[in-house]
């Protein structure tokens, strides 16, 4: 990529900030999972950790994200979130006692 240095540096820094934020968010969700036993929080926690890994990896990858496999990681994170939502609604219908 032929971007100015400051742009690349700022981008990498921002990605680090985001990765850290995702790690913390995941921790909170896992704490909620422990507190409530609701599987949605376990799934969201893992999903945000995966998202964090995605952004962390993006900081190291110079080449095009599309040509590498990296978008698959993002896909995993969002599929997990979708699964969490579906799972919550299936559980609500099957057993009304969460």
């Amino acid at each position, binding site marked *: 990529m032929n971007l100015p240095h400051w742009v690349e540096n700022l981008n990498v820094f921002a990605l680090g900030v985001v990765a850290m934020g995702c790690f913390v968010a995941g921790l909170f969700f896992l704490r909620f999972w422990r507190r*409530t036993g609701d599987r949605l929080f376990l799934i969201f926690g893992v999903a945000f950790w995966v998202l964090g890994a995605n952004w962390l990896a993006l900081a190291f990858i110079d080449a095009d994200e599309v040509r590498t496999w990296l978008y698959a990681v993002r896909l995993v994170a969002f599929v997990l979130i979708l699964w969490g*939502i579906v799972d*919550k*609604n299936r559980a*609500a219908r099957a057993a*009304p006692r969460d």
Partner: protein
Amino acid sequence: MSQDEIPDNLRTLINEQLDSVVQVEVLLLLHAQPAREFSAAAVARELRIEAAGAEAQLQHLRAGGMLESTPAGGYRYAARAPALAAAVGELARAYADRRVTVISLIYSKPRTDQVRTFADAFRLRKDKGNG
């Protein structure tokens, strides 16, 4: 201080509509003289509160269906539904006899469980209650 003696309709009224002692005082002031039209200034004078605060409470109570506004810009007690009128009557009785119980009911409303509400937001079919 027994909270069991508070009737259910009053309990519901407190949970759904009443947030403070000032609000209860304003409501009962107008309830005591249902034929009289009150302005915010008059309420402020009688209860010794700020007029702006009185106006806010009057508007809130009107939105809750317990007061009506008059053409002159004042307010009058007029509970929209008979169930509401009954509850306000219970409030007047309970506030006279068991003021402390009523006040502690107002201020001990359970705070929303943020985490639980977060999970519930993802339910597509809303059946309240269990789970």
